[in-house]
């Protein structure tokens, strides 16, 4: 105010001085005009310094609220509208005088019941705020998705020897190439380059060699700048050893190699091979001696998987067959190996052979379900393929999609039929890796484990420090209420209204890193991410959520007339400048004329 006052006083003094000079001038031409121009010139000069404000009243559509958020592109923001924001940092980034700040949306909306429609610009609203505007008409103008990881998923628990797969989408908005890296244990394990202005589905794969909890890093690098560095926590667990019973109709190399390979990796294996009528030779590896003379329930209960010849299964007596079938229905796996060109046992007859002959000796390149890499060539004499029917799952197939190992659900268990007579030649040819892949995939596909007591799911996907975490527990059916403890604090679980074995716990993490949780004295762990982790993921998640919300929320706009809003406006300085120039110009010209 003081400065303005000084300016006014100065201007007045100056004006008085000028008028005096004009009055006193000898040549008294255009006196009135000169005096007028002097006054105008000084006044407009003063108004250039002190702009004139005035209030305008505007008719605004009643019930409209325009919100802008971060990342709203400046040119998309509507002019001549009263703008509001929920994010105080917006005030810094955009021209501040036009924007009003709303600290709490639901409170504001409750105070302004006339508002029916929201125009939203920028990166959207958080879930809480979206809840608050349910029932309102929402016009959402989303900002472009930021450069960064849009989604990312991996298994948080990996069994030893199994690969860790990190998959996701990276969105590159920039005009440069971005390099994505998976780093762990001081090594770059996998990498890919994202082209400018494109999306990329990345699929990183690495087989961790260590055990226990580790944190790998997903990094995005542009030239030498690190754009993003996110934690990829996971745990490698020694897998439960699958117990396998091998029933051979005669001693052969295939069983011998399989037995030795399984035993070499500490798998419990029992092998029974028929050497004559009702005479068997048995061997046990990593397992106590058992009586394998007859197949009965107590025997089968000790195994997860039976691998048997078709002929051997056919030679089982009726009660043995019934026991086996019952056990498979309970969840055990059975892999039947074909010996002849026809199917003999009742288990094998559930499948069908492809009658088309494939020619004499074929070199086949097998492809295994869930394994992108084909195996090395395996030569088979007179190969027979299988036919898949509805409900079957093909597990091993060749380049021409001819199926050689097929599987069927049988009760809670699975029956597999393999038409590949021998695979040990892979082993002998030095393709141990292929041999391992083949048998591991088949065995893994044949059995399922369910001896876990409880499983947890953590929401959100990337829990943050100081934000609530919802943990969903799934208990074994019929178990009582779980006792949950985190950092020595008992947390009360909330039972699901629909499923009696599902429980929910809410928890506020205090620090970053692995968070251990005790459920019924059993320790599980999940990872808490830092506050600035997965930023782009969260932003794009917010944008997508808001967009989906606005689409689903399609109520017709409510025309409830206009309301009058007052707004301060300013007279453009250009007018005063023009006046000043004209009057000063006249005065100058007039003085030259004399």
């Amino acid at each position: 105010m003081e400065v303005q006052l000084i300016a006014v006083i100065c201007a007045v003094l100056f004006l008085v001085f000028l008028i005096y000079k004009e009055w006193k001038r000898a040549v008294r031409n255009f006196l009135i005009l000169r005096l007028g121009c002097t006054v105008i010139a000084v006044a407009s000069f003063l108004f250039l310094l002190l702009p004139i404000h005035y209030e305008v009243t505007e008719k605004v559509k009643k019930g409209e609220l325009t919100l802008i958020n971060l990342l709203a592109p400046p040119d998309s923001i509507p002019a001549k509208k009263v703008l509001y924001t929920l994010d105080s940092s917006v005030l810094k980034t955009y021209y501040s005088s036009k924007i009003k700040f709303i600290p709490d949306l639901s409170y504001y909306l409750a105070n302004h019941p006339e508002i029916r429609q929201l125009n939203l610009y920028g990166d959207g609203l958080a879930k809480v705020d979206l809840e608050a505007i349910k029932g309102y008409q929402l016009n959402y103008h989303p900002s472009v998705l930021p450069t960064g990881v849009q989604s990312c998923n991996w298994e948080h628990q990996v069994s030893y020897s199994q690969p860790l797969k990190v998959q996701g989408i990276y969105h590159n908005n920039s005009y440069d190439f971005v390099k994505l890296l998976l780093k762990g244990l001081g090594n770059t394990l996998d990498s890919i380059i994202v082209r400018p202005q494109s999306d990329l589905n990345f699929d990183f794969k690495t087989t961790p060699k260590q055990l226990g909890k580790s944190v790998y890093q997903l990094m995005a690098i542009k030239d030498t700048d690190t754009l993003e560095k996110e934690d990829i926590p996971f745990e490698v667990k020694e897998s439960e050893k699958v117990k396998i019973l091998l029933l051979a109709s005669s001693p052969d190399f295939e069983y011998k190699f399989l037995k030795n390979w399984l035993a070499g990796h500490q798998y419990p294996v029992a092998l029974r091979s028929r050497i004559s009528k009702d005479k068997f030779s048995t061997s046990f590896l990593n397992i106590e001696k058992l009586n394998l003379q007859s197949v009965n329930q107590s025997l089968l209960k000790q195994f997860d998987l039976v691998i048997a010849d078709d002929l051997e299964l056919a030679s089982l007596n009726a009660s043995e067959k019934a026991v086996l079938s019952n056990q498979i229905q309970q969840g055990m796996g059975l892999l039947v190996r074909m010996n002849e060109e026809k199917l003999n046992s009742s288990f094998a007859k559930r499948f069908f052979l492809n009658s088309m002959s494939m020619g004499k000796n074929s070199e086949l390149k097998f492809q295994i379900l869930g394994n992108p890499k084909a195996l090395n060539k395996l030569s088979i004499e007179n190969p027979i393929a299988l036919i898949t029917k509805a409900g079957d799952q093909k597990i091993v197939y060749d380049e021409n999609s001819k199926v050689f190992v097929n599987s069927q659900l049988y009760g809670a268990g699975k029956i597999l039929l393999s038409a590949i007579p021998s695979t040990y030649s892979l082993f002998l040819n030095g393709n141990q890796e292929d041999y391992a892949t083949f048998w591991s995939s088949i065995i893994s596909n044949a059995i399922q484990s369910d001896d876990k007591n409880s499983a947890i799911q953590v929401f959100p996907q990337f829990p943050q420090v100081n934000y609530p975490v919802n943990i969903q527990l799934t208990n074994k059916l019929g178990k009582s209420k779980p006792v949950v403890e985190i950092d020595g604090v008992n947390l009360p679980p909330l039972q699901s209204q629909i499923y009696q074995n599902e429980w929910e716990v809410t928890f506020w993490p205090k620090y970053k890193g692995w968070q251990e949780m005790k459920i019924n004295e059993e320790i599980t762990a999940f990872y808490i991410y830092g506050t600035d982790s997965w930023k782009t993921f969260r932003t794009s998640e917010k944008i997508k959520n808001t967009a989906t919300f606005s689409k689903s929320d399609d109520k017709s706009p409510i025309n409830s007339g206009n309301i009058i809003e007052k707004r301060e406006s300013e007279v453009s300085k250009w007018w005063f400048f023009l006046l000043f120039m004209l009057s000063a110009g006249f005065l100058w010209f007039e003085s030259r004329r004399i």
Partner: protein
Amino acid sequence: MDGKQWLIALQKKWVTLSVITLCLLSISIALPLTAVVIYLKHWGFFQVFCSAFLPIFLLFLAFNKAIRIKLTDLAIFINQYFPEVEESTNLVLIPIEKLNFLQRLQAKKVGEVLYQLPTPPQAQQKLIKAGVVLLLALLVTFGIRYLPLINNHAVSDLAQVAQETKIKDVIPAEISKVDVQIIAPSYTRLSIVNQKQFSLKVVEGAKVIWDINTNVAAKSIQFVFNEKETVELKVENEAKTKWGFNRQFKQSGFYQVIIDGKKSELYQIEVIEDLPVNIKIAKPAQQTVIDFGQARKVNLQVLLNDDYGITETFINATTASGKGESVSFKERKINFNDDISGRSLQLNKVLDLNALGMQPGDELYFFVKAKDNHGQESRSDIYIVSIADTAELMSMNGMLGGVNLVPEYFRSQRQIIIDTEKLLKEQPTISVEEFKNRSNNLGIDQKLLRLRYGKFLGEESETTIGEVPEGAEHAEGDGHDHAPAKMGEEKKFGDVSDIMKEYGHAHDNAEDATFFEPELKAKLKATLTEMWNSELRLRTYQPQEALPFEYKALRLLKDLQQSSRAYVAKTTIKTAPLKLEKRLTGELDKILETSIKEKEIVNNDQLIALQNSIAALEKLKQGKTLTIADQKFFGKARIALAQAASKNPSTYLNGLKLMTAIIEGNSRKLKDIEIAENALQKLMDNSPLLPVAAKESLSSDLGKAYFYNLKSKQ
């Protein structure tokens, strides 16, 4: 004043400046020349430069006139250049007595004027020009030096083995100075290297001498090699501040210095192995067949490389001749004509198979053997050169007894060869027309044969395949007949299929289309190409040139014949008839069943320790404390790392150092932990994919319960 003296001084000055100019010019020419030579030949700078500079300079001296300038010439020059001397400089050169009065006066005047004259600028101008030329020459020289090194010699110098380590050591504070002298074995011809640090990179068998000076007297200084072997250093002075030790190295590893019980960090010893000579045979291919008509010579091109020097190399050639059981081998050593020395060589040798006494059908097996100056021998793969045996192709062996697939075709190709040779033999005795006629006829035969084979490939025929077109001419007694293939068969009257065949247009026979495997078809196609070529030559009356193609066609046909043949041995075994009612009725109660409990296989300790150590290191990264079990795993992992580092220090030593620091609690830095983790995981092999039960989510529990209930209701 005497003007003559002034002129003499000027002459001296002139000559000196001229000599300097010439010298500069010679350098200007010699320098770029030297650079070019060094660039191409990699010789020493000084020798090349001197041998270039001296002749140029001497040539300049011999032919340049400026240095032999005479006083009279100079006088004329002064006359022309300075008007003050009034054209009378030469007067001062003439003895006074010979001058007349006026001349004397003038000479005296000029003498005075001369002393006031400046030195003519021409003398320096030349020098300046020469300087500019020299500058340009220097620029060119440097330009040549920075040209990309062309590899004009694939065999040119390899990089010398460098005994310099790039690691920067931390030397214990007690040691004021350390001198390490590395003496490489003499055969390597490497110079002695002196360094001021402990980490070593030496060649195999190098002797290392340490001289250590300490700040204060030390009671003892020890070296611990690979954490196993401890050696005491020798004191070399009374004050116990100078210590020495020496040792020869054959294997990589690491060592540590202990001064009065205080351990230093670990220092790397990297031993560079001496590799045997690397032999690469550029020519010929591993399997070469010399066909009829080709020169019986093999051009052999070998590239040899070694780290220090090649002392000996030769070709070991074995010729195998004869066949069946009477194969005889002859081995001989063939030397290269070139001089064998240096670190890399490119050798050429032409092996003359005739000179080796090889006949058609013989084979030559050879390999190149080389020895380096350390006495290590190495040899190349075995290469085979064989001369195609045309006589073998002509033989009827195997044709008489075995399966006779399509013998007449083969006989025909053979017949064509025989006829061609016969024709060539008779050429001088028969008329040109006759010669041309017979050559043409042979071409027709070749065509027919080709068409017959073309049939197998389903090629469209020009005429009816297998039948001689009616207009075809045959010279009498050309030794072969072209009886139509189905001469023996008489046409049956009223055979519908025959009539159909005659009037129908069968494109190709379904059976023919699948008659051969693709591989066979490809061979057949190649045969046809040869036949085409042969026919072309025969039709253009060049039977001599057709002969190689005929032979090649025959050889390919022979291969075809062999590949589609199966031999079955005759068997004469009679088995007793089976009594089916008696089968599987034997008494088995005395047969014992075997039951074996095999030895349990357990995971090795080291792997478990390594796996768990990484987990523990990850814990440290999270800022958690270690358990006693973790410490134990660390201990075992450290031992494993130390073992690995003694074999391969460049990979594992840094990890070992940091692992030790982590175990002792000296470092918790993220980067150090990562390096240690990296080293540990390098020690582990990749595990193959192992069977794992597919995990089922627990929410399917409800489904299961439903399933069981459903079953019990059934």
